[in-house]
């Protein structure tokens, strides 16, 4: 006990110089004493810190008691209304639940929608069988309907489609649906010159019309560069078309994808060319510049399925016109195409003059 008292006095600096020296001597000689000094020193430090923290805490508590905690808490507390509180706390849960509901509604809706489509599809297939059984006439009706639906109608003041020359003296071939019901017809070539034309022949069965330029400013064309391909084209054959879906001539490329057209129409090819309103009546040519068909329409719901009337029917239509009036330089079968072996760009350069925009008023 005596020793402890001395140690404490030593550490607190209460010993006089002589006593300090004597004690330090003792400390050096006796390891136990030294150990006791160190441990007591540590203890005193801990106690000091403790005291300091305790005082600080008391001070803080004192300050805290001055604050109107209740008042502040009421102001800052989450909203007292339970519902609002519930909403704030569970915002994310509510959001998840809501999105789940929306999702399920959407999926229910889409399921219903899908089943509706299936119903439609069945209906169409029934129609198809009816078509097969009934007369040729009905096929035409359906065809007429689809063409009616496509926006290539004769809009007053708008251009109606595309056409191409079949003879040098101004006979132009196009789709009947382009020019059907027109008051007056004009064609415009790639240079921008307009000529008045009149319809001289229509073939409603094959949707073909032949127009004749009746304008006295028309000087005639040079030799028609393309020829008619008599044989049926193979699937996969590269084909292209030129047309006027806008004010300038536009190239569309693709290949023959089927030997039959809309719902099995054998007078048409299906081609994988993206066509737009205005492409109707455009020439469909193969790589060698042989006329394969006339672009006539596309299917509503299917992407990349356009239809072209087979070239055979172009010949038939041309035969219906008095052969004398077509002149010598007309579109033929046996001649060699002037486009054969040329690059696509060169071919188009030559073709441009023979493809016309049909303007319907």
């Amino acid at each position, binding site marked *: 006990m005596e020793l402890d008292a001395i140690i404490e006095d030593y550490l607190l600096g209460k010993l006089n110089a002589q006593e300090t020296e004597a004690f330090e001597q003792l400390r050096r000689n006796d390891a136990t004493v030294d150990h006791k000094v160190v441990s007591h020193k540590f203890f005193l430090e801990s106690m000091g810190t403790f005291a300091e923290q305790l005082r600080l805490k008391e001070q803080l508590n004192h300050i805290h008691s001055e604050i109107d905690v*209740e008042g502040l*808490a009421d102001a*800052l507390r989450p909203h007292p209304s339970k519902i609002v509180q519930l909403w704030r706390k569970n915002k994310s849960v509510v959001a998840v639940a809501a999105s789940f509901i929306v999702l399920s509604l959407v999926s229910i809706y889409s399921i219903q929608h899908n089943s509706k489509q299936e119903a439609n599809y069945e209906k169409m297939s029934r129609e198809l069988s009816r078509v097969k059984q009934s007369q040729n006439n009905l096929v035409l009706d359906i065809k007429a309907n689809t063409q009616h639906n496509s926006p290539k109608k004769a809009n007053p003041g708008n251009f109606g489609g595309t056409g191409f020359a079949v003879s040098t003296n101004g006979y132009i071939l196009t789709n009947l649906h382009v020019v059907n019901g027109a008051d007056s017809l004009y064609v415009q070539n790639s240079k921008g010159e307009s000529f008045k034309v009149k319809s001289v022949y229509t073939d409603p069965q094959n949707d073909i019309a032949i127009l004749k330029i009746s304008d006295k400013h028309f000087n005639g064309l040079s030799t028609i560069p393309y020829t008619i391909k008599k044989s049926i084209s193979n699937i996969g054959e590269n084909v292209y078309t030129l047309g006027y879906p806008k004010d300038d001539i536009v190239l569309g490329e693709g290949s023959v994808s089927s030997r039959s057209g809309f719902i099995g129409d054998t007078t048409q090819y299906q081609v994988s060319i993206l066509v737009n309103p205005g492409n109707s009546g455009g020439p469909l040519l193969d790589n060698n510049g042989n006329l394969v068909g006339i672009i006539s329409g596309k299917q509503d719901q299917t992407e990349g399925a356009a239809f072209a009337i087979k070239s055979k029917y172009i010949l038939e239509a041309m035969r219906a016109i008095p052969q004398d009036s077509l002149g010598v330089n007309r579109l033929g079968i046996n001649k060699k195409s002037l486009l054969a072996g040329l690059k696509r760009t060169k071919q188009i350069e030559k073709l441009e003059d023979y493809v016309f925009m049909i303007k319907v008023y």
Partner: protein
Amino acid sequence: MNNSLKSSVPTDREVILGILNNSEDTLNKLYKAYYAMVLQFILNNNGDEDDAKDVYQEGIIILYNKIKAGNFELSSKLKTYIYSVCRRIWLKKLNLNSKKAGNITDYEDVFAVEEDVEHHEEKDAAFVKMQSALDHLGEPCKTIIQDFYIHNLSMQDICEKFGYTNTDNAKTQKYKCLQRLKKIFFQP
């Protein structure tokens, strides 16, 4: 209330200088300045007023000790520092009680103060150890020790307070108490 609180917000420099000079007034102002902020944070994150008090006081003590230790560099606003520290402490407490701490609603910017908080926790452990040692001591030893070491009473005062016949008796008693306390304190 709110207005008077806001008007008395001391500048950060004032706070640091005041604490270094042991200014009670500064501590008072500091405490009142940011209490509302922490209270709001705790109340809106699964806590109550008592939690807010504990956490806030701990935060203030951390700041106080850091300033006292002289290694406080003002790298951010004091407000942000206090908020970050209190936030850290509260998150730890929530974790400890395995309460939901998923969505913390924040009201201020936050920056990393993990080191300070952990440093404080070590210190706090020593504090708790001393506190529990004292509690184990029992009366009258506890009061004698507290009076001598914490309230800095002289042996003469203690002698009178406890009615010992002379200071030597008081001293003997104190040393006995001290021995026991040290024994408890140094127990592993």
